[in-house]
């Protein structure tokens, strides 16, 4: 443990952590655009600068380790002025279309500009004018909104392990690109969307069938219903519709998802969904009420059991249903029908 002073208050913190990590643990807010706990520190956005007593130069808190006796100011005048300058520079080369941007309300650049009072970019001059890459089926990349934080590139490389994207050009012209600038659709990208989830601004955005503003949706934490990894995620709900998915942090997926979990949700509100019980009469399905089907099923169960014995009945329970449902299904067959003829497709 080391003793450090932050904004005049003394704390004991673990050694070998960065100032940013210490502040995060102590709930002292520090703005960052390029930081992600899961990635190696990068020190690109400079927004996490802090002032250290005895040092003239401001230091990036994400790359500077705590030391015993250190005195840190996270919001001194100098720090705030510098941060405002950085944000101003970023916003000066950014489209001013927050009103219609899908990211509005969930954008870190917007939040920090608000917090630091940057109303508009004061550096007038040429703005970038790139075309948008919308070749991927699930998300778009707008280089004009990109603040070059590098998170997407690092997530794709260090976490997803696909390395589909990188930086291209230098200086003013820099943007995120695929090899040879062929577009995402022709790259090795597997559409996991993990870069999209990491992007702090509206440069990488999921394609939306139903539009929504960030504040209109409720987020419900759940478990992916596809494979056995059981990734944790949030369903974004607007009205009675699932309009998007975002990854959740923690076990087992550490904020990562694959294409199915992340973008494979539109079956939920699909028009093909079965909406009413059906009974087949003369080879054709007819709509029925729950009471009707329940009566029919119960009578058929009783009939089969009486005529041929309980072992003439069988049930396939489901690796797709919940534990509770599987429990009830086998209980119904064993306890109420009287057979162990219950199985499911574990083998397929």
């Amino acid at each position, binding site marked *: 443990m080391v003793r450090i002073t932050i904004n005049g208050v003394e704390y004991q913190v673990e050694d070998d952590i960065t100032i940013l990590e210490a502040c995060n643990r102590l709930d002292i807010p520090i703005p960052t655009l390029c930081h992600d706990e899961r990635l190696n520190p990068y020190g690109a956005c400079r927004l996490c600068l802090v002032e250290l007593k005895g040092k003239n130069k401001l230091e990036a808190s994400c790359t500077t380790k705590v030391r015993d006796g250190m005195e840190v100011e996270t919001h001194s005048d100098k720090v705030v002025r510098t941060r405002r300058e950085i944000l101003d520079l970023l916003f000066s080369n950014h489209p001013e279309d927050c009103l219609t941007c899908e990211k509005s309300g969930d954008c870190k650049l917007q939040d920090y500009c608000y917090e630091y009072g940057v109303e508009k970019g004061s550096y007038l001059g040429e703005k970038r004018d790139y075309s948008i890459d919308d070749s991927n089926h699930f998300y778009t990349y707008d280089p004009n909104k990109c603040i070059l934080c590098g998170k997407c590139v690092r997530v794709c490389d260090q976490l997803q392990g696909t390395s589909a994207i990188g930086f291209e050009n230098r200086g003013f012209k820099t943007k995120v690109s695929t090899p040879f600038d062929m577009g995402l659709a022709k790259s090795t990208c597997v559409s996991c969307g993990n870069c999209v989830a990491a992007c702090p601004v509206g440069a990488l955005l999921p394609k939306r069938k139903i539009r929504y503003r960030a504040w209109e949706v409720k987020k419900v934490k759940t478990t992916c219903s596809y494979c056995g990894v059981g990734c944790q995620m949030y369903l974004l709900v607007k009205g009675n519709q699932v309009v998007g998915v975002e990854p959740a942090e923690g076990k087992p997926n550490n904020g990562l998802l694959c294409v199915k979990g992340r973008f494979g949700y539109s*079956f939920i509100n699909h028009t093909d969904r079965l909406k009413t019980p059906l009974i087949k009469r003369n080879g054709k399905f007819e709509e029925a009420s729950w009471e009707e089907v329940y009566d029919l099923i119960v009578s058929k169960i009783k009939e089969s059991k009486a005529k041929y014995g309980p072992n003439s009945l069988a049930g396939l329970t489901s690796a797709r249903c919940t534990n509770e449902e599987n429990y009830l299904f086998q209980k119904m067959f064993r306890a109420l029908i009287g057979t162990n003829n219950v199985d499911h497709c574990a083998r397929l």
Partner: protein
Amino acid sequence: MTNSIEEVLDNDAMFVIGSNTTENHPVIGTFMKQAIRRGTKLIVADPRRIELADYADVFLQIKPGTNIALINGMIHVIIENKLYDRDFVDKHTENFEELKKVVKDYTPELAAEICGVDKEDIIKAARIYAEAERAGIYYAMGITQHTTGTHSVMSLSNLSLICGNIGKEGAGINPLRGQNNVQGACDMGGLPTDLPGYQKVFKDEAREKFERVWKVKLPSKVGLTVPEILDEAEKGKIKFLYIMGENPMVSDPDINHVKKALTSLDFLIVQDIFLTETAELADVVLPAASFAEKDGTFTNTERRVQRIRKAIEPVGAAKADWQILTDLMVRLGHDKKYSHPSEIMDEIRSVTPSYRGISYDRIEVEGIQWPCTYMKHPGTKYLHREGIARGKGLLMAVDHRDSAEVPDSEYPFILTTGRLLYQYHTRTMTGRVDGLNKLAPESFVEINDATANKLNISNGDKVRLTTRRGSIITTARVTEIVDEGVVFMPFHYTEGAVNYLTNTKLDEHAKIPELKVAAVKIEKVGS
């Protein structure tokens, strides 16, 4: 899995066999790639040159159906070179001499010949696995969907036991479970032999315990497995079948047989979220709520019991499966009417020792891994910590056996099957997501360049595949992913469904059909 997903990052070596992890368990695949960057060694054995092969220290492109020969070959090398963990073998295993005797014949030369790989690679793989301090085995259906599936699992267990790679963090044997809750469905007694918690229906003590809680007399006769249910239905012995959330008309082998079986029934109920190929054949179809419309729990492949939560109301008149079952059970005389899944979990907890400490309150923030045997139990990150669960790990000497069908002059190729990243199972869900369908629109067959050349087939040609059970038309994809003599098809699609072709021959122990090997004939259509 005996280990946790996060322990992938603790492996010094990984042996991935019969699992195309980056496509079928993609997020585990990303952890594997992260581990490789940190220096973890990788051995991959698969009939296809899957993505992980590119990262492997050794890639063994084995012939489908030769897993045991490969593993025995590796064990042979490990024993010959005294690379096994003698201390662990002495203290924690039984039957080592017998194993030694059987694998004696599996010289790298012989194993290499059976598997169609280089013997040096077998030796290298054996060394990497045995020399690693903590090695993890990862496998999936490429191991189990064979008539020798159970034996293949045993030989993997032999490998891990003789190297002492079990019961430690980052070392173990890890089946990657395919469907989201296949683990839970097994845990909950969705098996003809097992009550919840793997308590056997034929054991009086287990049955009596459930009889006390459920207040009824329970049947002691072991029930039928899926393939047996279908056989008996075709024979007219099974009259009534209730299918909840499954689609055997696409997923099961020999679809012609499945169809005959289902249409021979007196009464078929299908409960699902879409009118599936199977539901089309039903007498009654019940509209179920999707996972977004209900509360409950799934148990993932690392035994973690996690919540799903109701985000929206069920569409139309659909109902959650648990509600439908509760309604029916009450009508069949059940004494309880559950009003929320948490009440069902409380009952599960009371009869299932490994879930005894699991309640909705406890898993609100983060899921818990079973066994979790009391209310303060933290859950179990990896299994067999206290030595081998059964006391001593029994080494089971097993021999290689040919697949039920081997190529001959009439059906000269091996057909193997699998899954794609962009589709899921029978496509009832992913088939309704536009982007996914654009990326993986239709059925195809992968054919090696040389084979295609011989048959005068080019990329994109329509080809007819025929086995002893059926015949389908699909599109050729000429590629080097598969070897000569082997063709691969994904099983997701209804049009050009590979399961018209696959073999129903079962592994006699686990009753798993040999979906991974069938002898097939290929012809170009028209031209």
